[in-house]
């Protein structure tokens, strides 16, 4: 991996989009409090807000290109580009071959107070991946609880999509602290409050796969959790701006024909990248 690779960003564009989002027309609003992931299709330029209705609730987010779900959140590369924790104007990047922004955060109202011993703790880590049935089980979680992985799997099934599309997800409203020597993420009680929200701008036609985490606000040991997830409100608005597209003009960009087939999706022939294949002995 390459650990420093800044990408250009037209900050003014997002400042204006954020302003426009405050006055955008609502086209869809759902209060969501049931187990089972929610799929929300967003057109390019539209926004979606996730707002807490009854205290802190971790909301897991795995976005994918609606027309080509193989292009989905690349949490590891997003971490390289944006850092571990997401906030206003963080971009959520998609997988190869296009490796472009899928979403940009226009608003994040969560405040992280500074408490003794919590130096370095922040909300919205882009790395998830622990919301599996095994994690829940080995941490002593209550039997019969639908984990994030199972919720994602069920939601994908409604569109006849395979579970192999599940990758590490972003964890909105989750508070974590990085244990520096071990580089492990400690989950802390979220500081988010009722009314806090995160607003996302769709850079392309994108589907948000959202699941309420059974860990609720992260405040209780897994074995002690007997509370159901708390409700959130999901609001979609009309387009607030025409996305700039990617790459920006005059930016170096690889020839995507090396990776995509004639349908515009990643080629599924088991061959090396053309022109870069003479590498095996």
């Amino acid at each position, binding site marked *: 991996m390459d650990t420093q690779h800044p990408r250009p960003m037209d900050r003014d564009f997002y400042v204006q989009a954020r302003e426009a989002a405050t006055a955008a027309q609502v086209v869809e609003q759902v209060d969501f409090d049931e187990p089972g992931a929610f799929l929300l299709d967003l057109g390019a330029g539209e926004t979606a807000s996730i707002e807490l209705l009854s205290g802190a609730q971790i909301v897991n987010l795995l976005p994918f290109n609606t027309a080509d779900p193989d292009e989905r959140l690349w949490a590891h590369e997003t971490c390289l580009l944006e850092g571990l924790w997401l906030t206003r104007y963080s971009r959520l990047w998609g997988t190869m071959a296009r490796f472009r922004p899928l979403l940009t955060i226009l608003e994040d109202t969560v405040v992280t107070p500074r408490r003794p011993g919590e130096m370095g703790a922040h909300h919205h880590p882009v790395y998830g991946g622990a919301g599996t049935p095994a994690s829940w089980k080995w941490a002593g979680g209550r039997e019969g609880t639908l984990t994030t992985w199972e919720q994602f799997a069920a939601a994908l099934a409604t569109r006849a999509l395979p579970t192999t599309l599940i990758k590490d997800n972003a964890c909105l409203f989750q508070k974590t602290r990085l244990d520096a020597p071990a580089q492990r993420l400690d989950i802390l009680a979220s500081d988010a409050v009722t009314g806090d929200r995160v607003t996302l701008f769709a850079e392309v036609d994108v589907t948000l796969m959202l699941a309420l985490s059974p860990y609720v606000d992260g405040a209780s040991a897994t074995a002690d959790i007997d509370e159901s997830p708390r409700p959130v409100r999901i609001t979609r608005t009309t387009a607030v701006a025409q996305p700039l597209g990617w790459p920006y003009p005059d930016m170096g960009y690889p020839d995507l024909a090396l990776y995509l087939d004639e349908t515009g999706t990643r080629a599924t022939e*088991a061959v090396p990248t053309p022109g870069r294949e003479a590498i095996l002995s």
Partner: protein
Amino acid sequence: MSASTIGLALEPVAPPIDQPFYDRLQAARSSFTKVDEHTVERGTGYGLRVSAGQAFRLVTVERAQIVDLCLTSAEDPTEHYAAGTQLAWEGGFVSRGNRIWGTAPRSRPLAACTADTLRPKDDASHARDHVSHGAHCNAHHWMLYTGTHPRTCYDNLRAGFAMLGLHQRYVHDNMNIYQKTALDPHTGQYLEGLSDAEAGDYIEFYAETDLLVVVSLCPQGSGADTLHGGDDDWVPYFDMPVYPIRIEVYDTGITPQGWPVSR
């Protein structure tokens, strides 16, 4: 400081482990028998099959060389290394004693790290070698800095998977062996370091199931040269020194215990 003082709520996940099994495995290491070896040439990738109960080593030949390492179940190639689970369960680095976890729904150990001869030279920062996460360099990274791109890790991994009959969608987020880095605990940004590996160092993994092992020798070489040191300090990719790695495969004589195990 106790966990409760700092507000730590969710305890680390502790999957069951049959420690006596891994003790026996360690004790048997001196009788492992080498059955195959292959030197992966500079700037390339490679794919091989390693049977359950075998072990494989990634050996530095001349000096440190960043190796992107993918592990996939040979039985079901949709089951592969799970970087997020690894980070959550075992932390950000891989070394002796760590199990290497696969994707849900099985979420089982694909391998176990049984040896790591690298010795950190400087613990002043939190950066260490053998990072458990971070994916792979690709054409986009290199285009940005050099205007062109070499055989990037994505291309090398794609070629390695092709050797095994699998296409590019099987390339997954991987371990970064002989890469020294860490996330800054305050900013969440990556810190860079130079690998502490010397020629002859190796890291060894025991295959808990039949594995497809795919490696890429990163065109960034040892990490000692940077693509982005400053306006006058960019190193064109074709000038960057890249070093070979030797893969050695061993019969261990120890049959995996299977999964799940009783604690």
